[in-house]
């Protein structure tokens, strides 16, 4: 359990933007994960994704790590930002893009 937490810590601090999701950005396995991917693509930022369906330990532990019951979960600079609803609200308000700028997050290769 604590090993998994250590692993999650190193994942979320290892990249500026990390999305824990079901499936992959190309093949999301859930509508909420698919929405989260679309938002990040719109923001044009580079991000790391973790497919929790391929890792049962992380799938369970991530919920305790952030005290958040659902997947997807977005982390920016190691901080938990929210799930897909919060991402959408922030994106629509322009706050997500602003945060990515302020945090100097790397842009996606296009």
């Amino acid at each position, binding site marked *: 359990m604590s090993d998994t937490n250590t692993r999650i810590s190193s994942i979320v601090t290892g990249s500026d933007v990390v999305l824990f999701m079901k499936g992959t950005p190309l093949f999301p396995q859930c*509508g*909420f994960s698919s929405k989260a991917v679309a938002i990040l693509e719109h923001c044009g930022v580079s991000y790391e994704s973790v497919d929790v369906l391929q890792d049962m330990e992380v799938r369970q532990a991530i*919920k305790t790590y952030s*005290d*958040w*019951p*659902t*997947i997807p979960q977005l982390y920016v600079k190691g901080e*938990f*930002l*929210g*799930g897909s*609803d*919060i991402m959408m*609200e*922030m994106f629509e308000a322009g706050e997500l893009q602003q945060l990515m700028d302020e945090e100097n997050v790397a842009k996606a290769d296009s």
Partner: protein
Amino acid sequence: MPMAGSEIETAIKSALPEAIVVLTDLAGDDDHWAAEVTAPQFAGKNRVQQHKMVYEALGGRMGGALHALQLTTKIPT
């Protein structure tokens, strides 16, 4: 077992008594819900904290019995 809309509303209102809960059945199957919750208790909290308050009201069913809840939280104006 899915969670019926009436149960969702009751659970939220018992934890946040003055909340206004607007539910939309997204798929018409009594299982995929959108909820807009407006509550004075959200004042001074950030979005993550507001959503957590609603999840807490649902007593651990979020992500379990309640698979899909698209949530929007608002502070009354």
